[in-house]
């Protein structure tokens, strides 16, 4: 990685953190879209401007007050465990918002193999891999759609007029 690239990674890390924070707010306000449900999982990491300034909120129970305390100290969500559900299909992952890295991704159980794949181990492996990659792309496409929505808002006048006040009000009420 070049120095320039690493500089962009560091100076623009906030963009992904703001996305993840916006996403948590959106989840609190009612979740995903018509056919997708989103839930915040049991582990959230907030980070301040300095990367060594981190707050981990983990475990069962209502963590909103702790998340709110972190946000009011000027931190943003840096990582969060997310659950995505589409019909009966369910994905779990830890989204590293700062870098858009998908950790601990658990996909839905693999579907049935093609006829003939049962006898041939290699064909079975390729069948499973193809299905798994489709599952991975489906989950990432859902998150990409949300990221696109965030980007459209973030770069528009609606951010300052509507989204930011709503986020601030949410942060205030997380107690």
């Amino acid at each position, binding site marked *: 990685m070049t120095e320039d690239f690493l500089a962009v990674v560091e100076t623009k*890390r906030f963009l992904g953190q703001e996305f993840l924070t916006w996403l948590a707010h959106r989840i609190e306000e009612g979740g995903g879209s018509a056919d997708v449900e989103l839930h915040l999982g049991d582990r959230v990491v907030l980070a301040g401007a300095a990367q060594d300034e981190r*707050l981990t909120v983990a475990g069962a129970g209502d963590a909103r007050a702790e998340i709110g305390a972190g946000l009011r100290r000027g931190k943003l969500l840096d990582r969060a465990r997310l659950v995505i559900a589409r019909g009966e299909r369910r994905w779990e992952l830890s989204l590293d918002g700062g870098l858009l890295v998908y950790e601990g991704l*658990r996909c839905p159980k693999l579907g049935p193999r093609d006829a003939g794949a049962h006898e041939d181990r290699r064909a079975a492996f390729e069948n499973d891999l*193809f299905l798994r*990659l489709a599952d991975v792309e489906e989950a990432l496409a859902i998150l990409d759609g949300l990221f*696109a929505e965030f980007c459209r808002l973030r770069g528009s006048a609606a951010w300052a007029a509507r989204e930011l006040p709503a986020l601030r009000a949410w942060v205030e009420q997380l107690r």
Partner: protein
Amino acid sequence: MGFLSASTTIVRFIAPVPPQLNREAVAAAVTRRAFRDVDPAAGGAREGCGWVGIHDPLVTVFDPADLFFAHWLVVGFRYDRLAVPAKLLGLERRRAEAARRAERGVERLGAAERKEIREEVEARLIARALPTPRLFDCAWNLETGRVYLSGRQRAVCEAFAELFRQTFGVRPVPLIPYLAAEHVGLVPRAVEAVRAVEPASLVPAGAPRPDARVPRLPLEEARG
């Protein structure tokens, strides 16, 4: 930790797919960059990486059927590292320093001499160390140019990106948020707008802020 594991970590890159992809030539290029064992005696290398079969990590000779699958190019990436346990290095260094002090009849060694001893001990132990192999899966979607790697460690990602460039002639770029904005269906003006934004504060301007000089009881604070 591959794509078929119960749980996997994925780093996503973007790498434009060449308009003409000669599958035979690609298989030959992957074979040229296949994994070879790390030999610390030859040049003192401590890391080694290369392509391996995604079906079988011992496969290092490829034909197109090993790599191309529907609209995917899939291949395994092996990254081996020779490392000396820190505790062993510390003990052996102390032993070597004691021997040197006795040999020279002095009570203390200079910083330069201690550094030299450390390097000698490390080189001797590295020559006897066994590599720690790590296996990752790589999948390149030849329709979208998205590349998925099942690992996130920085050294691994850098070695992977360089090997990918050497093999396929195109450098994969990690899709960090700033760059991802260009690949999620936004119009160019929206991409430019979001790239230009400055960090927002979620704390209203008039709200009291905690005094950073006052120690606080952490709720569950993790540093680093």
